[in-house]
C-alpha cells in the first residue's frame, strides 16, 4: 500500500495534481507500511526540491547552534556531572542508614536518579560526541565509560553508527526489536513471538543486559555471519563490565555497610532496576509509538541529506514534559531533534524544538509527540498486537 502524505497547506495542489503519475517530480520518499499502516498519515508527496530545501533549513538550525556553542553550554554539562556525582554519593551514604525506611527510600531514590542521569543525560550524550568540542579529556566521547554493562566502545558502534544511520530501517536498525521482539509487521511472524509481551517485560527489567546482548548481534552469530573470535572479544568485554558492576553494587558497597548489608544490597538492586525500566520506557517511546514510521532497506539507496533528515523526523517521536522530565530522559524526550542532530549539545534540543515543529507543520510532516504514559501504552499495544501472526487492528 502507498501511504498518503498530506501536502503542506500552502502548497495545496488541485485534486487533479495529487495523482503520482501527474506529479512533475519523482516522489522521493515513499513511506512505508509501518506496523500500523492506517495511522501513518505523514508520508510524503514532497518533491525532491522541497526535501532538499527542508534539509538546507535544518542545516541552518544546526549551523546556528554550532556557532553559538560556548562557555554556558560547557558549564551546563559540568554542572549536571557535578550534581549527578553528588546525588550518587548522597544516595549511597543514606543507604548505609537504610535500616530506617525513610533513609532507604530517599537513598534508593537518589541513587536511581543518579544512575538515570549518568546513563542518559551524561553517558548517552557524551558518547555521541556532543561535548567533544570542549576538548576536555574528562568529558569526551573517546574516553567516557558509563555505568552500564555494555562497554562504551561496543555501544558507540551499535547505537551511534548502526541505529543513528539506519534509523527505523527494518532489518538494519537493530533497535527495531533489539533482536528479541517483533516490533514491525515487516518482521516475519514465528510462534516465538507469542512471547512478545513477556520478552518486553523482561527486557525492561534487565534493559542494560539487553543493550549489551544487542551489541552482540546473536542472530548474526547463529547465521554464521559473524566470526566467533569477535563474539568472544565482546563477551569478555561484557563480562568485565558486568563483573565490575556486580562487584561494586552487589558486593563492595553492601559489605562496607557491615550489618546493614541487606538494605544496601536491596537499594542498589532497586536503583539498577529503576534505571533499566525507565530507560527502556523512554527509549522505546522514541521510535515505536503510533505515528513513528518504519522504512525498508530499498529506501536507503541513494538517500540524499534531505531524505535522511525526513527519515529521522518521521522515524522518531517526542515526549511532552517539564524541564526535570526532559533532564531525566537525557533530552531523549526530544528524540526527533536528537535524531536530526545527534551531536549537538543536548541542552539545546529544547530550544530548537519549536522551530523543528514549525518546519514540520510547514512541510506537512507529522511531528509525533505525546505524554510518556500515552506513548508507552501505544508501544505496549503494538508489542501485544504483533505477538500474533497478522497483528492487525
Amino acid at each position, binding site marked *: 500500500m502507498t501511504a498518503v502524505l498530506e501536502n503542506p497547506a500552502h502548497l495545496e495542489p488541485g485534486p487533479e495534481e495529487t495523482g503520482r503519475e501527474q506529479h512533475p517530480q519523482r516522489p522521493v520518499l515513499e513511506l512505508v507500511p509501518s506496523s500500523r499502516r492506517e495511522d501513518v498519515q505523514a508520508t510524503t508527496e514532497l518533491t525532491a526540491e522541497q526535501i532538499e530545501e527542508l534539509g538546507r533549513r535544518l542545516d541552518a538550525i544546526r549551523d546556528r547552534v554550532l556557532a553559538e*556553542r*560556548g*562557555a*554556558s*553550554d*560547557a*558549564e551546563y554539562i559540568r554542572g549536571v556531572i*557535578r550534581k549527578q*556525582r*553528588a546525588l550518587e*554519593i548522597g544516595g549511597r551514604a543514606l543507604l548505609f542508614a537504610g535500616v530506617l525506611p525513610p533513609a532507604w527510600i530517599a537513598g534508593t531514590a537518589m541513587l536511581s536518579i543518579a544512575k538515570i542521569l549518568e546513563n542518559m543525560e551524561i553517558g548517552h550524550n557524551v558518547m555521541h*560526541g556532543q561535548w*567533544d*568540542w*570542549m*576538548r*576536555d*579529556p*574528562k568529558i*569526551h566521547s*573517546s*574516553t567516557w*565509560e*558509563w*555505568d552500564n554493562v555494555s562497554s562504551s566502545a561496543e555501544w558507540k558502534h551499535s547505537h551511534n553508527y548502526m541505529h543513528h544511520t539506519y534509523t527505523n530501517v527494518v532489518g538494519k536498525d537493530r533497535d527495531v526489536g533489539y533482536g528479541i521482539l517483533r516490533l514491525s509487521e515487516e518482521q516475519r511472524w514465528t510462534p516465538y513471538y507469542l512471547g512478545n509481551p513477556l520478552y518486553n517485560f523482561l527486557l525492561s527489567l534487565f534493559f542494560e543486559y539487553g543493550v549489551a546482548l544487542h551489541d552482540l548481534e546473536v542472530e548474526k552469530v547463529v547465521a554464521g555471519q559473524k566470526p566467533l573470535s569477535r563474539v568472544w572479544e565482546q563477551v569478555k568485554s561484557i563480562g568485565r*563490565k558486568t563483573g*565490575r*558492576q556486580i*562487584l*561494586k553494587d552487589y558486593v*563492595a*558497597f553492601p559489605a*562496607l555497610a557491615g550489618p546493614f548489608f541487606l538494605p544496601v544490597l536491596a537499594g542498589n538492586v532497586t536503583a539498577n532496576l529503576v534505571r533499566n525500566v525507565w530507560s527502556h520506557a523512554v527509549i522505546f517511546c522514541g521510535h515505536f509509538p503510533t505515528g513513528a514510521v518504519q522504512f525498508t532497506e530499498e529506501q536507503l539507496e541513494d538517500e540524499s541529506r534531505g531524505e535522511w533528515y525526513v527519515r529521522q523526523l518521521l522515524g522518531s517521536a517526542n515526549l511532552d514534559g517539564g524541564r526535570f522530565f526532559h533532564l531525566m530522559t537525557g533530552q531523549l524526550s526530544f528524540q526527533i531533534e536528537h535524531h536530526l542532530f545527534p551531536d549537538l549539545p543536548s541542552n539545546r534540543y529544547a530550544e530548537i524544538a519549536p522551530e523543528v515543529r514549525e518546519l514540520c507543520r510547514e512541510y506537512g510532516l507529522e511531528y509525533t509527540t505525546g505524554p510518556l504514559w500515552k506513548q508507552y501504552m501505544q508501544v505496549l499495544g503494538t508489542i501485544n498486537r504483533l505477538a500474533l501472526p497478522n497483528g492487525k487492528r
Partner: protein
Amino acid sequence: MFRSAPGTTSRGRGLLAAASALTTPLLPEDFLTLVDPLWSTTSLRGRVVARRRETGRAVSVTIEPGWAWAGHRAGQYLGVDVDGVRFTRSYSLTSPEGAEHLTVTVQEVDGGAVSPTLVRDLPIGTIVELEQAAGEFTLPDPLPEKLLFVTAGSGITPVMGMLRTLDRAGTMPDVVLVHGARMPEDTIFRAELAGLAARHPSLRVVLRHSAVSGRLDPAVIDTVVADRADRTVYACGPDGLLDALEGAWDGVVAERFTPPARATEGTGGTVDLGGGDVVVEPGQSILEAGEAAGKLMPSGCRMGICFGCVLPLREGKVRDLRTGEAHGEPGDLVQTCINSSCGPARIDLP
C-alpha cells in the same frame, strides 16, 4: 596519556585501585575532585592564585599546582578553557625552581586564541589544566663561569626563570643579560631586573629599546659585551635574532618563540584521524584541524620544537609547513603541529 599518575606512591596506587572498585567506571578522584579539583592524581591541574600586570600587554599568573605536580625545570604547558573550549599552549615558567607556586608570564599576541584570555580575563580561582614541565632550554649543570643571555620581547621569560633560580640559590655567576624590547614600557620585569642587578654585582643587565636604538644584532651585542667570545650564550626571542646569532657565533643555545612562516602549497586534504574523517585546510596543521573537529590531540609547543604532539602516520604522506617538503612512511611518528596533510592520510590517536 590522560591516566598517568606521576607523584603517586605504589601504596597510594594500591589504595586507589581498591577504591576504584567502588567508583567504577569512574575513578575515585572523579569524586574527590568534587571537593577540590586540585586533588586529582591523573590530571595535573592548577588554581590561579594571583595575577600581576607586568606591562600593558603582559601579565604574570601565579598558579597553585595540584597533587600531580612533579616540580619543574623549564618550559610549561598550560590548558585553559576559552569560551568552553580547552586550548593548550606552552609558556615558559618564570618562577624559580623549587618554588611552591608556579608562575607563567604571558604577553598578548594579536589575534591569539589563548593569550588575550590569559592576559585580560582569568579570574583568581580559575582552575587551569597543566602538563608536567618539559623542555631543554634549562640552566646547564654545572654552571659555566661566564654566561651571556640574549633575549628579546617575551623571550625574557625562560631566562627570568633561570635568573630567579640563581638568585634564590644565591649562586649568581658572572652573567650578562642583553634584553631587547620595543619601548621601555614594554620591557617585562624591568624593575625586577634592575633590582636583581643591584643585588648581584656579578649580574649585568643591558636593556635595549628597538624603537629608540634599533633591533638587537650580533654586532651590537659584541660592542656591548667585550668578552662575548668567553661566554656561554643562551638566546631566546624571535627567529630573525636567533638566526643572526647562530650565523655569527658558534655554540649558541637557542629557544625559538615565534612559529616560522608556513608553506601552503600542496597541503591539506582529508585525514582519517583516530577513526573519523577530518578536513585539513591548505596551510592548516593536522593538530589545528583535529582540535577544530573536537578530537583530543596531544600537543605541546605548537611550533615543532617539543615533539609533544607526535602521532603515528598509518597511510599517506604529510607535508612540513616550515619547509614545504612532503614526507612520511607508514609507522612514522609525525609532528602534527607543523605538518599538514598532502592528500588523504590516516593517523592514529593515542
